[in-house]
């Protein structure tokens, strides 16, 4: 950016001061791998204004059998299955490296019971390096059998359980595979969440072109990318009508225009997911495009 040209305005996101409104979607940018591939140049031109880590669970997970990817019309279906080193591995191996990033760190966690998630939240929250915690509620509660994030009461119970365990901002990452996402968002807010993020991927599937068996190792997967953009916009808009806490708008963002739409629909920050696969600097590009639109609007 040339001297004198005003940078993007700082954004207050549930207490975190971000240099701009563009962050990454959890699980779509591994900053540690990217450092190995691109070197420390990544730190000088980090594409996001906050970094959201891939979902971690209490115990390590291998993830799903390959194939894990299917290219769909204007999108991608993945069945990655949340591979991760587990809480201990994350704190030991990853946290020290992630601390080098020039932006606030948001740690994303997931568990199959209140107890698991509680332990993740309280442990992760005790680290100064962690600015906020995002809880991925797209998975079933082993106790109730219900997907935590698909049901308002389930979500409320979870948030109430973990709310007291940390002072850090709690972001609930909602699932779009629900009848009334806005009701879930409202329940999260009432139970004390500081923000919600949406959308996660939509349940989708592909069959093997030759055998007609499910292509993905995990059988079904999640659709992301441009194909889900208009669905994300509708969900963000509907949720924004119902809640007052900030929203992280996610889904198919490829351009400053796409980001602007989510902001206009009610999001406070926007996360870039699949587009980073096509272009690792998509976050910076989208941020610059957005800043250019805002400058033009102000003129």
């Amino acid at each position, binding site marked *: 950016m040339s001297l004198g040209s005003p940078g993007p305005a700082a954004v207050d996101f549930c207490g975190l001061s971000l240099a701009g409104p563009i962050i990454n979607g959890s*699980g*779509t*940018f*591994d900053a*540690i*791998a*990217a450092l*190995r*591939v*691109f*070197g420390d*140049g*990544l730190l000088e*031109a980090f594409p996001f204004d906050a970094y959201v880590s*891939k979902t971690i669970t209490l115990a390590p997970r*291998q*993830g799903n*059998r*390959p*194939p*894990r*990817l299917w*290219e*769909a*019309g*204007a*999108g*991608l279906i*993945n069945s*990655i299955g949340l*591979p991760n080193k587990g809480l201990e591995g994350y704190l030991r191996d990853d946290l020290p490296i992630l601390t080098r990033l020039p932006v606030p760190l948001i740690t994303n966690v997931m568990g199959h019971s209140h107890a698991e998630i509680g332990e993740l939240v309280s442990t992760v929250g005790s680290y100064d390096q962690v600015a906020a915690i995002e809880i991925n509620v797209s998975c079933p509660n082993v106790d109730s059998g219900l997907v935590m994030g698909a049901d308002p009461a389930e979500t409320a119970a979870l948030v109430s359980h973990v709310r007291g365990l940390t002072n850090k901002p709690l972001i609930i990452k909602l699932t779009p595979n629900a009848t009334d996402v806005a009701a879930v968002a409202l329940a999260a807010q009432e139970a004390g969440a500081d923000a919600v993020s949406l959308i996660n991927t939509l349940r989708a599937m592909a069959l*093997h072109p*030759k055998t007609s068996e499910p*292509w993905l*190792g995990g059988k079904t997967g999640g659709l992301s*990318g*441009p194909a889900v953009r208009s669905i994300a916009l509708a969900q963000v808009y509907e949720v924004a009508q119902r809640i007052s806490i900030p929203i992280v708008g996610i889904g198919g963002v490829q351009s400053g225009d796409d980001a602007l739409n989510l902001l206009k629909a009610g999001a406070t920050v926007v996360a870039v997911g*699949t587009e*980073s*696969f*096509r*272009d*690792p*600097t998509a976050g910076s590009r989208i941020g610059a495009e957005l800043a250019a639109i805002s400058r033009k609007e102000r003129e």
Partner: protein
Amino acid sequence: MSDRTLAPLGRRLVELTQAKQVGAYRLMTCCDPDGPLPQAGQFYMLCATDGWGGGEQERPFLPRPYSYLRASGENSELSFIFEDVGPGSHVLGSLQPPAKLWLMGPLGIGFWRPDDDRRALLVGGGIGLAPLAAWQTELADQANAVALLGFRGTAHADAAHLLRDPQIATDDGSVGHHGLVTELLESELDRDSHATVYACGPPRMLEAVRLLCERRAIPAQLAMESTMACGFGACFGCVVPTRDGYLRLCVDGPVIDAARVQTALEGSDQ
């Protein structure tokens, strides 16, 4: 020292300088002045500026991984060779100079020299010759290195000249040995087994090489393939099973010590 040549952050818009048919394959050269000299076995993510993210079934959408065939530090040239197997390679194959394309890399870990004096046996199946051609160039100092290449038939075997003095096998016997490249490998190992095998090719051929080397306790490096969405470790989509669990082929491969590989078949749809 890093285990790899680092990639500049982000993708680069480069110009296609040459595109021609080599038998059944397409050879494409572009000029990449802002990229470093890659290491044999490293790859690039490529996509065209037009015709990407659309088409009949709206594919291709994601960039595609390609090993480089040749890289020249002098004139910053980078060549790729590939087969038309789907929408991505089809669009790339229809580009004509001076088309622009997006390129990111070099990515991944290439072949490495063992610290012993074993001779190099380069074993390629079909389009798997690409990284081997690059590796042969880097091994120019090894007089006793041997290249063994297998093809379906004449049209594909046309590309064999991209390597120096290859022994050739074809499925239909139209060129060279009538049979599998692994049979050539057996003969070479029978002749002198003090060797390291560097292999690239389709899953079944790689698996055959892996088993053969395992049985004979020959060290081997396999350049593997899998579907990739990102190429830089972001998506966790490109994993292959190893004895230490799943490994992301784009950051911990594509060249892997055969001793770590459990099977070169899994994840393949063959």
